């Protein structure tokens, strides 16, 4: 049944366009603000959606007058590290609880979940004590090891959901054929769960990227900070927000991540949808 162009427009292009428009509009505003000269910032008579005299000075200030580059590096290292740790643990744990159904797995599944009962606002002080005892103060390792405390429960449950959608018969067939459990995991389950693993990955990555409180408390020196904390320290001076550089930081701190993700998705997932067709 071929769809007419009008139907496509109404049921696809228009809704999608509206979605994208609403999702992207704040970013457009960020872009305009990042290139708008300060003098124009508070002028209501000007067009709010455009600037006639775009300037690079805010980007320059961000990149050269603040420690943005080290912050970007730190945030990247910490996010990658924390995600790797969290996801490795979670994939194994989710498979164990969801598929293997070993004794005590039910209790464990619930227990992991309950770790959200005490939020970082309360946790950070006793956690600071542990970090200090382990000698991790002011080191990225402090965050790489503490972020998994809120990433693992999240990723585990998410992956349990994805594993649940993969029919158990596929694995049973392979085991009947003589595969070991490890081989089943490696060759059957993980490849099929890849879209799910990738989403768990991107979520964990962005939760780490985004985090503020632990990064504020456990890191001290200017060069060691992450992007959210660093931008707040250097671009919010009292009651004056340096909107231009802040928005430049927001853009530079998010668009690259989206591009990297899109690369991943294209490379790994698209081919897989085809493989599922039997």
């Amino acid at each position, binding site marked *: 049944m071929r769809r007419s162009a009008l139907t496509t427009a109404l049921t696809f292009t228009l809704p999608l366009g509206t979605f994208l428009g609403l999702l992207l509009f704040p970013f457009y505003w960020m872009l305009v603000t990042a290139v708008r000269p*300060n*003098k124009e*910032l*508070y*002028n*209501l008579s000007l067009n709010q959606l455009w600037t006639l005299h775009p300037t690079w000075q805010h980007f320059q200030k961000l990149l050269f007058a603040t420690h943005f580059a080290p912050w970007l590096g730190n945030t990247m290292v910490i996010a990658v590290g924390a995600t790797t740790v969290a996801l490795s643990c979670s994939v194994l744990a989710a498979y164990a609880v969801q598929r293997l159904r070993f004794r005590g797995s039910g209790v464990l599944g619930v227990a992991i979940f309950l770790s959200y009962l005490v939020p970082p606002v309360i946790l*950070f*002080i*006793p956690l*600071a*004590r542990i970090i*200090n005892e382990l000698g991790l*103060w002011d080191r990225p390792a402090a965050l790489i090891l503490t972020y998994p405390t809120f990433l693992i429960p999240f990723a585990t449950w998410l992956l349990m959901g994805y594993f649940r959608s993969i029919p158990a018969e596929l694995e049973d067939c392979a085991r009947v054929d003589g595969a070991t459990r490890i081989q089943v995991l490696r060759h059957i389950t993980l490849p099929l769960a890849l879209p799910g693993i990738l989403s768990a990955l991107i979520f964990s990555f962005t939760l780490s990227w985004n985090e503020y*409180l632990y990064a*504020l*408390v456990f890191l*001290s*020196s*200017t060069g060691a900070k992450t992007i959210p*904390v660093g931008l*707040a*320290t*250097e671009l*919010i*001076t*009292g*009651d*004056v*927000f340096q909107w231009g550089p802040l928005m430049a930081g927001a853009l530079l701190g998010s668009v690259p991540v989206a591009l990297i993700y899109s690369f991943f998705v294209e490379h790994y997932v698209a081919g897989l949808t085809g493989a599922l067709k039997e």
Partner: protein
Amino acid sequence: MHPEDRENTAGGLTRRRFLQAGVAGLTGLALSSVSGWLKQAAAQLPPGSYNPQLQLSFPVEPGASLRILRWSQFVSTDQPEYERMAQQFTRRTGVPVRLEYEAWPDVQPKAAAAANVGAGPDIVLGFFDEPHLWPDKLVPVTDLAEYLGRKYGGWFPVAPQYGYSNQVGQWIGVPIGAPGSCLNYRMSWVKEAGFDPDPASFPKTTDEFLRLCRALKTRGHPTGFALGKAVGDANSWCHWLLWTFGAHAVAPDNKTITLNAPETVNALEYGRQLFETMIPGVAGWLDPNNNRAFLAGEVALTNNGISIYFAAKNDFPEIAGDMNHAVYPQGSAGRPTELHLFSQAYVFKYTKYPNAAKEFLRFTMEDPQYPRWINAMLGYVSHPLRAFTNLAVWRSDPKAVPFRDAVARMLPHSYQGTPGPKSARALSEFVIVDMVADALTGRRSVREAILAAESRLKRIYEA
């Protein structure tokens, strides 16, 4: 040559140079020109105002080093000067100093973690009653505080109220100064409204002030005062409103809530009339909102620190030329009753080098380092010790003068009680601001707003 003559010449040269630099723009203010006139303005303490012969020095521990956590700068000349000061200290004593900066609301959580962990920065520059949250974890600084008071003409009354802990019986904090707040207004519009735009003639009583605000509003230039959870602006003006009519939240015994009184009703009734002269939307204003509104020409009058003026000098010179500052007017209280962002330094007991820490604080509070730092901040921070009243910065730009006496004119936020955990809680809960906001916006009647705030305060203070 008489010392005063030398000073006047120095003052004249620096004033001209400072104004030139000011026009060129804040970021263009090369530190070299600042230090140039600073050297000339070295003798800024009038003779007789302080006791230069007093000396004190703490025996620095061998192998000492210091970590200092402080709020990040309000003005771009602050950190470079502070770092210079720290380097000078290191050269003199051999103690390396590591400075860490955090956005000012983020200092408290970091200090809290350090207090609990028993490790972290040696010195913290915090605000309000922060040291009173962990008084027994701090190194007593009574000797240093009393020395500074004796040497520099005495602390302003509010300083020992914040610095001294009744619980511990010692000074636990060294007051550093306060970013002051004043009324910011547009001179041309005030003139249009029929009032003299000169700060010296600015309305000094609340009645006259209300007349001015009404006249401004009638001519299409409303006022605007923050009623949202603006930690700086809303707290400043709401506490002023209460106190200037003789009202207060708590009695000197730190237990009895005295809010429910006719004076409070008067304050809120007045506030309601003031509210009618305000621009819509103030109920959601946080600290940056009034800056924006003022710089866009949407309001003629607001309360703020000197940050609006600075942004104006940089990017909106027409407004910088047209604006001025004035101190808050007074109501029936008959004396200044203001609230400013009081900052003090404290030293954690877990530090391995308490003497080095105290020596650093002493160094930064003494002449000529402290005056140099205050001058470098171009009017953002005002001094807590009397002898520093005549620093060059206050003589260089007349528009900065109203900020000069911030600490002298302020009361502690716990008034009439004393700073401590309970007043910290009341401040963080915005009890007073909520009450004023409720009454002024009409969410509650004046009576109900007072009762609601009173019951909240009772739960906090009598817990």
